């Protein structure tokens, strides 16, 4: 019994180590932990677009379209709505997964602390978690696009490119929110972030109606929001008219947000976890 067999025949033989990058070892934690909840989580991921597209796209769409197939920006309402919701869903998952789970890593389950007692470094912990959140966004975006196709709201093959666009949108939100979460002592501010950050973005970034409907000054604000970039990017791609430099500008905005968020998170994680 005991460890005698493994520890003491001298010289002690150190086990072989894999060459799996450290950040992926941290990632593995989430993968294994997800075993507990994947069924419920996947069901939600599937039902969410089904419910939204059915209720708002078809139900509300009927009212808006008035029998026309070019009612909103030249397409049926549900075509207009679906890519907006795709981007908004990516944002919500990116933001949600970077609040409470980060607090759990630091305070509630202390999974970060357990990792840091091993060869993993703070950046490995951060990148592993961000990669996991990005995975969640990717799965949800993939399912969302499949549901969109089932609702016949994908008129162009360009829609394939909306997948990385949605993933980029989710990751661009995740990184700065992770940076923010690592500075918090309680989960109070997450609710504030949701109510005054995520929800207004969801409603006023062109997800449900063209921002041209807004008063001019609000249009300027809406154009500057990060979700507007994601919504426009996804919509242009799904509807098959990517617009050259404008599309690149949307993607560039999100990319800068992602990189800036990662740099900020590196700093806040280090300040919080290395003392």
């Amino acid at each position, binding site marked *: 019994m005991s*460890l005698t067999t493994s*520890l*003491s025949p001298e010289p002690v033989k150190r*086990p072989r180590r894999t060459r799996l990058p450290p950040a992926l070892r941290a990632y593995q934690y989430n993968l294994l932990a997800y075993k507990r909840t994947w069924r419920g989580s996947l069901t939600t991921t599937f039902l969410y677009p089904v419910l939204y597209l059915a209720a708002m796209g078809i139900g509300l769409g009927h009212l808006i379209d008035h029998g026309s197939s070019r009612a909103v920006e030249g397409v049926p309402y549900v075509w207009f709505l679906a890519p907006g919701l795709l981007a908004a869903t990516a944002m919500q998952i990116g933001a949600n997964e970077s609040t409470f789970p980060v607090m759990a890593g630091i305070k509630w389950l202390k*999974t970060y*602390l357990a990792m840091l*007692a091993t*060869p993993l470094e703070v950046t490995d912990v951060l990148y592993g978690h961000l990669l996991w959140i990005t995975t969640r966004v990717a799965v949800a975006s993939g399912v969302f696009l499949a549901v969109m196709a089932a609702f016949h709201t994908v008129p162009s093959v360009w829609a394939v490119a909306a997948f990385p666009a949605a993933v980029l949108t989710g990751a661009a939100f995740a990184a700065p929110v992770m940076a923010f979460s690592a500075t918090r002592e309680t989960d109070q501010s997450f609710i504030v972030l949701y109510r005054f950050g995520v929800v207004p973005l969801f409603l006023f970034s062109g997800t449900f109606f063209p921002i041209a409907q807004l008063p001019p000054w609000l249009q300027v604000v809406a154009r500057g929001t990060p979700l507007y970039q994601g919504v426009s990017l996804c919509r242009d791609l799904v509807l098959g008219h990517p617009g050259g430099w404008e599309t690149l500008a949307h993607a560039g905005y999100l990319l800068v947000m992602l990189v800036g968020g990662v740099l900020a998170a590196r700093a806040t994680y280090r300040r919080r976890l290395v*003392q």
Partner: protein
Amino acid sequence: MSTSAPDVGSDPAVQARGLTKRFGDFTAVDAVDFDIRAGEAFGFLGPNGAGKTSTMRMIACLSPISGGTLRVLGLDPMRDGPQIRGRIGLVPQDDTLDLELTVRDNLYLYGRYFGLPKKELRERVDQLLEFARLSERADERVDPLSGGMRRRLTIARALVSSPDLVILDEPTTGLDPQARHLLWDRLYRLKREGVTLVITTHYMDEAEQLCDRLVVMDAGCIAAAGSPRELIEQWSTREVVELRFDPEGNEAHGQRLADLAERVEVLPDRLLLYTDEGDATLDAVKSRGASPIAALVRRSTLEDVFLHLTGRSLVD
């Protein structure tokens, strides 16, 4: 140990010179020196706030040093952190187990953090489950386990990478006596297998049982160092006479009996007379007509050293 120098027996596992830790204006560890030899069980004793945990965290490469030098397994924690942590097992004061995962998954994942390959890791996890006497609970979640079981799991987890050095920060705090004895037994086994143990505790009996050598820390400094035997010889007498009077009488009796012992400590509930011949001293007490409610002659313990060095009070 295949990666370390062949003369591992003579190189200290940990060497600290002027080791300092500051948090802002507060100095938690104030220029301490110590050597921990490979293969020994080394203890840090001291009241809460003495700087034990800060010292542990620096050794475990979790907390950057503020001054002095520190070598762990011959490496520099400021430069070789991941490499050192790869050879250390840490049992932190607060468990960092994932309560929602199973016992087995907790061990398995931790091994993966160290980069252990899956197949060998699975075998290793089975061994560790047996070592920690948790085989029957292997596939249950951690949440409902008792404190003792969780502690054993945390220790098993720290061993997953076959570390050369195991750091235990108050390993038995909050455990019942059976759980503590089982845990001590597991630590003896590790020591017999050549693992270096670094232990902090404020249980004197634990330090006396487990540690080959120890230091007593107080207010960030090392107040004394040596083996339990040496410390007792140096800082206490061979025996102690414990006398219990009416609580109000302790101080007066202490003064009256002071010349009968090398040193007298007046505690809130009893008098301690430090002497080399306990029975003779007790006879002398009785022949003076003092009639304690209870009297006891015992050998000096580390607790006496601790009381002497850290000013009696266990700050809890």
